[in-house]
């Protein structure tokens, strides 16, 4: 039998099967090869695979922590501290990147030549410089040029900026939970209100001033808790204290370390350029005819923006912007370069050096980021489906 006949004899099903079997076999072989090597390597070094080390005492300090932590806590807690720090800097970065990005994206479409050009150059400059260089610049060059503790830059005597960081007042709440519940209650009321307003609009054609009522609710309800609910708020203002002849420190208040400032600055300024481009593309993506049609049926400029342009632009803007949020979160791992104690520095850096458990620690770190990314992309897909044009 020659080869040609053999080929012809292959049924379609077998043709599909062979490459798949080869792929799976190769995959299994690679995994087995790596496992055997890893086992023998770890055997040589006298360590065994396992996650028991997580409950051991970490015995290292972390410079900045949102929760109670010191060297006597476990590695698992150190991981949590790192994770919270990552989430903190990402949240700050996302907040400012969104504001800056939307402003600049709209600015790029401004009729004002100067504004449009400035926005364009902002994007061109900050998009084309590596993020890590921007972080280095802010941390090692710009923030190091700030004055010493004694000659801090003073913001109305309540907050101080110097080379050691930014000192802001600490909020001291009494009965904070009551305040929180009032906000939650306000949000629930607003949801019901908007549902009711929609019903009114659809059935009777009445327009309720939903925005003003919601804003009022959101302000008045928490305010009443101050008057009636026993909630009070006081500030602990940082104060300069002289330790010795030349050493001064700020006591009290919250200190925002320069690592956090420079990281948040660089992340938000860098990501803002991409968000700005998304916003611009989104607004440009709305057909001109849509605006003209809306204007021709007598909608005002504000109504056109709110009812016609924005819903369509958002459909274009949001998916890539969520992607940018995800990128920002992943980029926050560059914190390791300036020693901001995020999950990479604390866990994949210090903890790894101490325990030598490369496989476990790197896998946990990567899995953490992976689950973060996957959950965001699941959310994005859900949102995309919800927002997709439903054709009748």
């Amino acid at each position, binding site marked *: 039998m020659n080869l040609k006949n053999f080929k012809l004899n292959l049924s379609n099903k077998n043709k*599909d099967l062979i*490459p*798949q*079997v080869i*792929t*799976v076999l190769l*995959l299994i072989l690679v995994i087995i090869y*790596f496992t055997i*090597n*890893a086992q*023998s*390597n*770890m055997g*040589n070094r006298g360590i065994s695979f396992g996650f028991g080390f997580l409950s051991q005492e970490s015995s290292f300090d972390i410079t900045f922590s949102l929760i109670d932590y010191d060297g006597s806590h476990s590695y698992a807690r150190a991981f949590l501290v790192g994770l919270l720090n990552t989430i903190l800097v990402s949240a700050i970065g996302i907040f400012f990147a969104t504001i800056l990005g939307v402003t600049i994206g709209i600015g790029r479409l*401004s*009729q*004002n*030549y*100067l*504004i449009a050009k*400035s926005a364009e150059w902002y994007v*061109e*400059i900050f*998009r*084309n*410089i*590596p*993020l*890590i*260089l*921007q972080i*280095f*610049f802010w941390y*090692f*060059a*710009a923030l*190091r*040029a700030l004055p010493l503790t004694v000659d801090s830059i003073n913001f109305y005597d309540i907050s101080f900026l110097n080379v050691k960081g930014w000192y802001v007042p600490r909020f001291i709440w009494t009965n904070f939970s009551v305040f929180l519940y009032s906000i939650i209650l306000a949000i629930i009321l607003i949801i019901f209100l908007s549902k009711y307003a929609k019903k009114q609009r659809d059935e009777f054609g009445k327009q309720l001033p939903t925005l003003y009522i919601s804003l009022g609710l959101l302000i008045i309800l928490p305010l009443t808790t101050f008057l009636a609910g026993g909630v009070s708020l006081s500030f602990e203002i940082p104060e300069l204290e002289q330790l010795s002849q030349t050493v001064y420190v700020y006591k009290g208040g919250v200190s925002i370390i320069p690592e956090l400032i420079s990281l948040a600055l660089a992340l938000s300024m860098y990501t803002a350029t991409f968000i700005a481009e998304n916003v611009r593309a989104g607004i440009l993506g709305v057909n001109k005819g849509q605006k003209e049609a809306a204007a021709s049926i007598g909608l005002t400029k504000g109504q056109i923006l709110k009812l016609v342009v924005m819903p369509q632009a958002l459909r274009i803007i949001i998916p890539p912007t969520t992607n940018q949020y995800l990128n920002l979160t*992943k*980029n926050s*791992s*560059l914190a*390791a*370069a300036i020693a901001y104690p995020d999950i*990479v520095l604390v866990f*994949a850096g210090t903890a*790894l050096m101490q325990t030598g458990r*490369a*496989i476990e620690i*790197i*896998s946990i*770190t*990567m899995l953490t*980021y*992976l689950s*973060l*990314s*996957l959950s965001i992309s699941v959310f994005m897909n859900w949102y995309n489906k919800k927002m997709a044009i439903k054709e009748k």
Partner: protein
Amino acid sequence: MINILIKPTKENLKNFVTIGGFLVFISFIDVLANTFLNLNFTGFLPSKLSFFAPLIIGTIGLYLIRIEYSGNKLLDKINTNFNSNNFNAILSLIVIFALIKYIPPVLNWFFFDANFAGNTKEDCTGSGACWVFVKVWFNRFVYGMYPDTEQWRINSAFIMLFGLVGASFFVPTKLKKYLLIFLIFVYPVIGLKLISGGEFGLKYVETGAWGGLSLTFIVSAFALILCFPVGMFLALGRRSSLPAIRYTSIGFIELWRGVPLITVLFMSAVMFPMFLPDGTYVDKLIRVLIAITLFEAAYMAEVIRGGLQALPKGQYEAAKSLGMGYWRMHFLIILPQALKLVIPGIANTFLALVKDTPLIFVVGLLELAGMVNLAKTNPKWLGMAMEGYVFAGLVFWVICYAMSRYSQNLEKKLSTERN
């Protein structure tokens, strides 16, 4: 009288333009005097009001000259581009004043007060930037720790590359194919051997000594050449109808896209050696190249998949109806069109790759940004961080900006009527 003052009209064009122009002029003079002569004309006002005085005067002035269809071309141009309403007028003034205020100090630091002559930090006596630092370290910034006497090897490797790329624009189309194959398959080997040495009488230079800008180029060029085919196969795999191949590709792509590059590099540095047989040593640079390639290939795969999805189904059907098999269909019909569609995406991936190269510092390889970091901690050159980062930033900016411009041009040139 009051009515005329409040609503500028075409009838009183001359008066309004004179008064308004004068007010705008005054506001500019005020800011200029404040910046360059340190004079404050409005010092008699309260400090806050004095600060905003030019803005207020300028806004009033701009309001007075805002006359639609004035018949004056220049005035109409100013009004439509800078002064279409009060809000725009204020924004324009703020931008102009900020430029007047902040450009001169930056220029002074950068150029007029900067120091260029000399060889040590002590030669920097001016108040501006100390470019002596960059001058002295320039060799290191470009070549890293590569021995001075051997640097011609890096130079010749790059000259050869530029020569080949340049030649590919001029040679006849028939030869172009062979040149491309040479560039992609043969040249990397020659280039690497030339730089690493160890054979043909060239002194061996270990990869730890490579660095600076040349390393940035080496890493990004290799990763690009390698990640392209890998990404292409991953993209095809993800769209395959065979479940085992599809799910393997999806898993692979999503794994790399879900983690930050820095953890991948950590993995290549500390975890990867554990997976190899005891005693085998893979060079640091090779490990980094593999890590970056796999990472970027996942992104490249998604970009190419976008192109594959954008192609109309008819293209596939037409290819099949001509009796083409899977590979012939993809390589002759589908991929050439799909790749053309995603040139901006590919360029963006490559840009991201170049911008990601500084991260190799986590495994101890120092390209440009890493060398600046090293140089600024040198005891003889403390306090030079600003100069170093500005220089590195400028270099990266020029590279990335040129690349993004080139890709935009390419996109325009290659765009066919389908869009």
